[in-house]
């Protein structure tokens, strides 16, 4: 008391609890777009070659098999961000209390769908990883056309792929919309509703692309 305040240059005091919370949230938001969203789009693109037949698909996707430092690249651009997004996503889901019955608005439905598709995506991504890449790492069996074809001919696995892929695609397109709000890129109600509709349209396009790709794997070699 009584001491005059003296102006001092700020000292580095580490992160405050608020800054740490903010960082975790922002990493969750960014990781959904870069790299996970970007990878999902690339993954649909590379597998899209399957519509040109088994041979085209196998040769066009060759470069993603046998990359130098493959494990490092996959871990840094894929598995660490995805694991982070999944785990923190579950933390966020645990703090939500959907109320769609009482407040049946379109955005509120999308809010709940974002969470439901997140959980479906989590189950599907783990399943998809272990039955393709994971299996390869453990047994050395390549996931070639014959393997994917056999999966897609199995009605249960085919259904899992349809549901899982649509969930991922919905989660991404709706997430692109909420991302623009999170970062303050799209503000007013009119522009938000426009971006929301564009993202819904993107969902329809990507959903058709995904289903066409999955069905194409059912063509015999």
């Amino acid at each position, binding site marked *: 008391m009584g001491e005059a305040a003296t102006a001092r240059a700020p000292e580095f005091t580490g992160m405050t609890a*608020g800054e740490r*919370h903010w960082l975790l949230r922002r990493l969750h938001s960014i990781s959904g777009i870069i790299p996970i969203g970007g990878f999902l789009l690339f993954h649909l693109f590379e597998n899209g070659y399957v519509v040109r037949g088994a041979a085209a698909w196998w040769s066009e996707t060759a470069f993603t098999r046998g990359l130098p430092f493959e494990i490092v690249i996959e871990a840094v651009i894929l598995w660490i961000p995805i694991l982070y997004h999944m785990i923190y996503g579950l933390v966020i889901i645990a*703090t939500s*209390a*959907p109320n769609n019955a*009482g407040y049946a608005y379109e955005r509120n439905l999308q*809010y709940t769908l974002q969470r439901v598709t997140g959980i479906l995506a989590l189950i599907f991504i783990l399943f998809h990883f272990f039955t393709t890449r994971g299996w390869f790492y453990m047994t050395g069996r390549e996931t070639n056309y014959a393997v994917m074809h056999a999966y897609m001919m199995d009605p249960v696995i085919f259904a899992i792929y349809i549901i899982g892929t649509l969930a991922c695609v919905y989660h991404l397109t709706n997430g692109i919309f909420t991302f623009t709000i999170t970062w303050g890129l799209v503000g007013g109600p009119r522009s938000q509703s426009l971006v929301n509709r564009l993202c819904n349209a993107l969902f329809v396009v990507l959903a058709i692309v995904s289903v066409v790709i999955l069905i194409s794997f059912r063509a015999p070699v």
Partner: protein
Amino acid sequence: MAETFILRVKRQESPKAESHWDEFELEYKPHHNVISMLMEIRRNPITRQGKRTTAPVFDANCLEEVCGSCTMVINGRVRQACSALAEKLPNPTTVEPMTKFPLVRDLMVDRSSMFESLRRAHAWTPIDGTYDLGPGPRMAPDIQQFSYLFQRCMTCGCCLEACPQVNSHSKFRGAAIIGQVYLHGQHPTGKMHQDERLAAMMDEGGVADCGNAQNCVEVCPKEIPLTTAIASVGGQVSRKWIRDLFTK
């Protein structure tokens, strides 16, 4: 009795007591609203089944939808009871307290968490000094007009009640406070302290915890563009954060 109106009221004697429903039957008057009906019940608290009970406890003040104190959940949707007119309500109608605030008794809740949010976020514009600071900078009329929308906030709690991200297992403090942070950041004098408010918005419970369900803007009785404020404040905190990362 002529035509009647049935009001089902959720009752709870104390924060820890069990809740139950009481049904009251009143004479139907088209100009009744939920508060005037509750006042009538209070004068003679006898249920439809003929049982004498205690007078339902509720908050109400202005009776013209500007104070926010009579906010309740009416037929499952949050709104002000004073502007819920009998002629526009289904019969019977249910009346419950808000669920996102600590219950005091019956329909009365304690909304002090919203005032605590205003305090934490410095959601005011300091204009008093130890000497006359003179007139403040001028404000463009269009910004004045847009800001006015946010000045209509009456801290009623509708936006928190309808928000799926505001609940007992989440720390999110809701949309109202984000609207007020936006408002004071628009004011040329208020802007000078915006960094303090943004720092509070960074904390757990601040703008990052919004899940974009956007129910707030649907239920706000004052039609405040809350989602515009959420996007803007989200952007302001992001920019401050990135600026601080490189300059602090």
